[in-house]
């Protein structure tokens, strides 16, 4: 039968252990520290910190804690489509706000 790529990767055959998630958590704490640090370096640095470090943190949570790493392509596509849609909404809205 025509089961497509979305089922190709079988979920949770090999379960990751405690250690991996604790490492990710430590990384998240460090990134939070960096974010706070950067925000003291002035407005420009704070905005850049926001734009880079925050998505990175969110990405770690999505990829590891929410098990996206262990899922097939379908869920990754779903998340990317959602974020892409929001980004386009955002861009189109700013074609108004920023040029009024």
């Amino acid at each position, binding site marked *: *039968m*025509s089961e*497509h790529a*979305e089922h190709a990767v079988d979920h949770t055959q090999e379960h990751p252990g405690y250690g991996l998630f604790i490492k990710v958590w430590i990384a998240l704490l460090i990134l939070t520290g960096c974010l706070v640090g950067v925000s003291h370096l002035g407005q420009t640095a704070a905005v850049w910190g926001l734009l880079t470090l925050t998505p990175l943190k969110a990405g770690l949570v999505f990829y590891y804690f929410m098990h996206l790493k262990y899922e097939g392509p*379908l869920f990754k596509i779903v998340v990317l*489509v*959602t974020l892409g*849609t929001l980004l*386009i*909404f955002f861009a*189109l*809205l700013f*074609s*108004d*706000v*920023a*040029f*009024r």
Partner: protein
Amino acid sequence: MSSTHASTAQPSYLVDTGARQGLMAWLTSTDHKRVGLLYLYSMVSFFFVGAIIGLVMRLVQLTTFEKLITAQTYNALFTLHGVIMIFLFVIPGLPAVFGNFFLPILIGAKDVAFPRLNLASWYFYMAGAILAVLALFTGGGAPDTGWTFYAPFSLKTGTNVSLAVFAAFILGFSSMLTGINFITTIHRMRAPGMSWFRMPLMVWAIYSTAWIQLLATPIVAITLVLVILERFFGIGIFDPAKGGDPLLYQHLFWIYSHPAVYIMILPAMGAISEIIPTFAKRTIFGYKAIAFSSMSIAGVGSLVWAHHMFTSGMSNLAQLVFSLLTMIVAVPSAIKVFNWVSTLYKGSIDFQPPLFFALSFIFLFCIGGLTGVMQGALAINVHIHDTYFIVGHFHYVMFGGTGFAFFAALLYWFPKMFGKMYSKKAIYASWYPMFIGFNMLYFGMLILGMMGMPRRYYVHLPQYHTLHVVATVGSWLLVLGLLMFFGALLYAIFKGEKAEDNPWGGVTLEWTIPSPPPLENFEEIPIVTRGPYHFEPQAKS
């Protein structure tokens, strides 16, 4: 409860087999077919309420009746007409009724992925509907904002906007849950061999629709929450006095409410794509083009919202961008129309009521679509913005488009759903007043709009009077046609002849099972070996 595929035929889904009987058996059933019918009955009831309100609004424009209805009541009437027709009929319309009933059957499944969630969606729908009706009689009176709830008026008016907005929020929830259910069903429950490009086009249409429901509905949900918070706590986001911006409201509202138009029309197009090949007795022309055009309408259609705001004072750049994107949506829509017409070409056409209504759909939808392209052009839009032209245009799309497709789909699948056949003569007879009345009413509105008649006005200037009379008489014919149509179907449910399993000679999966379908749809899950519209020369039995 495990596999009991006995050779004995299953009972029809219309027969109560569980512990509960009668009404309770329906209200607690998670069978997708019964949920579909629950939606059908409630939706058609609300449709008639909306239609009657529309009829009364037309009467107001005959100056004789002005004394019966005050201007404030008129404001409430057009708000109600919009809320009921849009949120309770056209948005859930085809996906909730025919999607629920036929999506699992079309892909060879026994039910949707989450049957209980499915029933819950109907309860959310009913809860939203009841709250919307309650909003009329409680608080400060019926909302008078128009169905768009534009800020800042919706923040300030003393009428019961909060409850109406909350009702719309609940209805949005119902819509999202349905979308989640359908996408999961299509991904997970297709029968063996039912690959993506063997799915009937109705399924593609529902799939695209479900994605819009997921990606756009939450935006209106949060917008409506903001309106409620604004009214109760004064958070100030849309209130210019506090630094807020009503234009932000318009943006957020239309980010959902324009794609909602495609939630309405895509499944309608899907149904038409089922009907046309069946009665042309040949495979659909350009299957993949239609499938992909559904997806691209869903995609591009989500990015055109600000064409509702050309006169609102947004930036020139945004006006250009949104005008361009609006024109682009016409391309996939036209692809569908061309493909339907090409399917008919050299087909052996079997002229039956569903095809008749499907062709009416194509005609009316073309008028709706082309007037839409006109408004996408900035220069014309400024002239006709907020006139009857807009009202005429969207009634051609929503009623002439979705409404007629809904009727066509109902005629097409009625024998399968109820196991009864209606009187074809009665249906043809209802078509004439419906179609003629429709065009008198809404083409009249198009001309009125071009002449400059603004929408939502309680009174009109003398030069518009003749066309207003024509439109009002048209509305009487239209309602007469609707009564004949649904009267014929209602009669058929109780007194109709028994329908064959495959009265139209269709080849998609729903025609391989008995009418009405058995409880589990299929005795055995079918194995699909070919595309959906494969007509053998002798296939018609």
